[in-house]
């Protein structure tokens, strides 16, 4: 079976978001009253697996191995 899983990766609190900071500054310069910008990355992954559980487990493992760094990022996995 094939499942679509979304991995959402965010920076932990206290970690500077260089891109977010820059976007905020630029939007301010364009005249918007923006107080804060956080960037989030999403990977929408189509995976082949025996069951939904297997699929989620597999993607969780992939996150740990490749997609996210637990030192600075939080990630969550949802089935779509």
């Amino acid at each position, binding site marked *: 079976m094939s499942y679509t899983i979304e991995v959402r990766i965010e920076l932990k609190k206290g970690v500077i978001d*260089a*891109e977010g900071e*820059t*976007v905020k500054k*630029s939007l301010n310069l364009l005249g918007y009253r923006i107080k804060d910008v956080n960037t989030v990355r999403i990977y929408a992954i189509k995976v082949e697996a025996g069951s939904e559980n297997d699929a989620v487990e597999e993607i969780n493992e992939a996150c740990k191995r490749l997609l996210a760094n637990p030192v600075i990022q939080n990630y969550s996995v949802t089935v779509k």
Partner: protein
Amino acid sequence: MPDVCVLLIEGTNCEEETRRAFESVGLEAELVHLKQLTGDCKRGRRKNLFDYRVLMLPGGWSAGDYVRAGAIFAARIKSRLREDIKEFVESGNLVGGICNGFQILTEMGLLPAFDGMSEAPVACLTNNLSSSFQCRPTYIKHVGSCLFTGGIEKDRVMQIPVAHAEGRFTFGERDRELLRDLTDNKQIVFRYCMENGDEAGGVFPWNPNGSLYDIAGICNPEGNVLGMMPHPERVIDVIQESDWTRNPGRDYGDGRMLFESVAEYLKKI
């Protein structure tokens, strides 16, 4: 008054070599921060765009190239100087963009500018097919002429390096249709090719980014705005080329031709 305004903001970083390239062909070029044109600085530092004849957007990572390469610089210019820039272009002055500069011109709607400067971008320089930054020499062919390249022969193959992560030219869903317009208007100036001038055919590494129709540089229909991904300012002298130890005996690098063309054009008018 200097001829060339080399415009920068934080993160622009090819301004020095761009200035040097213009100076090596006898033009006077000046580094100008966007603030100096918008007036957000001390009086003594302010500059006027209309004092120059060429506006040059150099390479680099303006504002970190966050969001999309060149997008922030473009939005900032547009929000403060849109009318000035429009007038500057329409009165026939030259506007050039190299690498990040090309991305900025495209995001600003100054290229391809089928019917003058567009409100929203019509094309995009998006991430390389390899999805990685590529710093490497490439060959490009001069397939059409504009005011920046009047002195370069037709079909001349030039060795010019690229260094970018987002250089794949595309019109998105309208690739086919708008490519035809681009060709009909003779707006394609440079295409990636093989050493002997044969088509790169989209194939890496000859085409380093997967660009539509091997497009490396385009101009507006009037020919006074040019954007290109490769960096001619990095190969003014032969020793800056990638394989010069194999071909001794020349002094100049291929990039100089472009700056010479500009100098000649400015002399004429």
